[in-house]
């Protein structure tokens, strides 16, 4: 894990979440070569949810998602991802917001 990813993980550790196990609310569509915006998400996602795997595809683990919608704006219109809100009551639970 890069130091940057470690740093954001430390930040997410402060937050409360109720993860909807096995039902990710954001899904990356299967691809061989990721689009420019999808690769950009590995940097822009404020929760560091996006990572590029060894064979070059971009994957998402949305457990730490802050539900900001940055990836929706950048990647949904072109069909790179499917973006939904988590089921009611699940996801990030802000204490302060």
């Amino acid at each position: 894990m890069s130091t940057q990813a470690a740093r954001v993980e430390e930040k997410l550790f402060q937050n409360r979440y109720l993860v909807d196990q096995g039902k990710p609310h954001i899904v990356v569509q299967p691809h061989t070569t990721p689009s420019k915006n999808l690769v950009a998400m590995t940097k822009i996602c404020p929760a560091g949810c996006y990572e590029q795997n060894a064979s070059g595809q971009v994957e998402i683990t949305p457990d730490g998602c802050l539900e900001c919608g940055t990836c929706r704006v950048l990647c949904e219109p072109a069909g790179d991802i499917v973006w939904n809100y988590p089921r009611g009551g699940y996801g990030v639970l802000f204490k302060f917001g």
Partner: protein
Amino acid sequence: MIEEKFDAIVIGAGMAGNAAAYTMASRGLNVLQLERGEYPGSKNVQGGILYADMLEKIIPDFREEAPLERHLIEQRFWMMTDRSHTGMQYRSDDFNEEKPNRYTIIRSQFDRWFNKQVQAQGAIVISETTVTELVSDAYGKVIGVRTDRSGGTVFADVVVLAEGVNGLLGARAGLRPTPKAEHVALAVKEMHFLPRETLEARFNLHGDEGVVIEAAGTISKGMTGMGFVYTNKESISVGFGCLVSDFAENEETPYGMLENFKKHPSIAPLIEGSEVKEYAAHLIPEGGFNTIPELFGDGWVVVGDAAQLNNAIHREGSNLAMTSGRLAGEAIFQVKSRRDPMTKQNLALYKKFLDDSFVMKDLKKYKDMPALLHTQAQNFFLTYPTLVSKAMENFLRVDGTPKIEKEKASVRAFREKRSLTGLFGDAWRLARAWR
């Protein structure tokens, strides 16, 4: 889920949704409000500053009970380079008035309180429920919503879309486009806790007085963005935001930018020794007047961030949200009391109210600002702050150089970096966009 048909369904319990639900419920309408969070407020993120006037128009005596943090008596605007800031500061004891004008708030707590007032007016509020789809009749009129609860279809005469900046429902139903990357900013924020006395000593505050710092300059590395520091009672909200389109073209991470801002020599001493208790992220609509979508249609209206109602120049969002929610509620009430149907034609009353209010007047005034700042980001966020800082240093550092030479050097630096045509052009464009 619920068999009966409502006068109105409000989607979302943020500022706009609560204002709309309160306005309608207090006028006797049968209102259902749906919120996807654990409780109203638990998904809501803001800096955040509350403007009293807009809330007073909904709940006049809110100061007696609402969870407010500090009333603001001081504003600092900082133009930053990596090692300095040039500031403009306004502090006035006149802001220590009986009914202060601006407060800092913590949204999850404030929204929870606001929503309790909505419920006290008789609205039914159901949390932990995500609305998945709008339901329309054969003619395309919105007649209700589908939720993620089993058997979760509910019907109403009108649906108020207060679904926030990521308004999925409206976008999926084709009522408005998904915002473009250049029309939204991504802001990240941390809550830094400090003992009250420490915080008040650092910011020169007494009692519930508060300070706001808003900073721009080289801290955004040439991108259109800004940092902020807001004082709460026992915590400091520290955040940083940039346009999503700028982030997409740079290699910077939002948390890296926030860390960088926190390490700035002008910021670090203010938050030193604090305990961080939360990290949040949120999108802010920045497109202004030219990106406002269709605001009403057959059986629906859209309010707040979902409608891009945000004044980026004055950093006002929640008051436009509250006002649009209130005006939508009033329009719906008027249509309802005339026993008219909730058609597009009748709901145009909401747009009329909005046009007559400060919301549209302000957004119209600054309609050219977003484009100007976004296309000139390098100049406004890198070149000018650096030049101003150099000029200030030049003015203040005493080293035996004759003053006339110092002045000439400062003027020369501006001309070299930006040329006279560039300087006058920027000033002209800025003045025109501001007018």
